[in-house]
């Protein structure tokens, strides 16, 4: 998968993943507070933030595998930073990354419009929910409650991952730091035209 990648792209992807691994760990604490206030559904409200690096990396680099790899690396770094969720987090990261990657794959990695980015966030929501259903034993909960959790997570994925990811990436493009990446080039074209 990485054979067609330039080293520059791989390192930028890794660095994005490292930065967001720290962000993810901070949000884990916020998540626990919401969890305490609202129960299981508390996590779902901000679940989208945990998919954001997929959206940002795919939107900036625009290569097959960007969404999957960035999320997987972010999860690996979270484990390296010594968070107590442990190595199964890497599996969760892979599954979330696959959810977003599936949506980008459906457009043959060509379309990065707002709708596709939001759909990619929702893709991660769907995949991660299926995984959570098994690992966290949602089957013991009432179907109505589980359905509510699912829809909250879907919205969260679309907004906190899709829209917020797009917004942050465009803010980055404005600084000129992305001038050698597709998003930066696109931004430059739009400004000069």
């Amino acid at each position, binding site marked *: 998968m990485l054979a067609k990648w330039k080293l520059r792209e791989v390192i930028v992807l890794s660095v994005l993943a490292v930065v967001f691994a720290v962000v993810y760990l901070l949000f884990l604490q916020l998540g626990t507070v919401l969890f*305490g206030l609202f129960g299981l559904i508390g996590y779902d409200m901000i679940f989208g933030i945990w998919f954001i690096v997929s959206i940002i990396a795919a939107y900036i680099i625009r290569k097959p595998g960007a969404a999957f790899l960035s999320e997987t690396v972010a999860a690996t770094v979270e484990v390296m930073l010594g968070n107590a969720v442990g190595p199964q987090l890497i599996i969760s990261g892979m599954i979330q990354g696959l959810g977003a990657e599936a949506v980008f794959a459906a457009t043959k990695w060509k379309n990065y419009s707002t709708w596709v980015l939001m759909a990619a966030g929702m893709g991660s929501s769907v995949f991660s929910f299926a995984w959570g259903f098994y690992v966290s034993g949602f089957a013991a909960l*009432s179907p109505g409650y589980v359905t509510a959790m699912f829809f909250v997570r879907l919205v969260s994925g679309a907004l906190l991952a899709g829209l917020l990811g797009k917004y942050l990436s465009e803010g980055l493009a404005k600084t000129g730091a992305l001038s050698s990446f597709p998003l930066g080039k696109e931004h430059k074209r739009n400004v000069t035209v």
Partner: protein
Amino acid sequence: MSLHEVNPSIKAFAVVISILILSLFFDPITPLLTIIWAVSITFIFGRISFKKWILLFAPFLFIAIIYVWSTMLFPRLHAGDSVIWKWGFLTLTAEGFQRGVSLGLRVLSFATLSIMFTLTTKPTDFLLSLMQQCKLPPKLAYGIMAGYRFLPLIKEEFQTLQNAHRVRGVARARTIPEKVKQIKRYVIPLLAGAIRKAERTALAMESKGFTGDKNRIFYREITVSRIDWLFFTLMIGAVLLSTFISWKLGYLQFYNGEL
């Protein structure tokens, strides 16, 4: 034998597979026995200070309690469940209570296994092992290591930004919209700086002859020995033994595809 010396990838797989097995069951005994096993292993073979351990474990106690009440308040009702208490839309059944406790114990069993891994594994060893045993491409592995080394630099940059804002008289954010703006003021420059640094690092790596070729030798080799496989077998064996004991006691309950 010390847990610190077990191959990190094998240790990680042992934890992940144990968790996958534990997720199959909805009974309190299996996770409870696993917790006892994981905690004993951690303290006997890990030489971990109790203070460190409890600091990581305590948040999970809280999470487990929330799991129990979420499952108790919103249980999946089955025909024939014995109702203990009913008030409005809330129904507490004996079976619901047992499933709630099982899920809470499941959270704790995951936590004890994970903490065993976290407290006995060095981050760089884990990455080296992923590259040498699990075929993680060197391009990505060294990329992650480079990124990992950026963290202290990014922290420094964050403090510089903070000071710069203060010198220029940016007021402290109080309301929520102000705080959102403040986060943006930090996040974009920090990310831009990180991306620029990443591009320079890639250039430096290439100019020093790094090709990312998979046929390479390593300065530090992480090996797999028989003890590693013994550890793996023991860990999986213990989880299977827990389920067996639970089955003998008549508690075992499978996940039977309910949606």
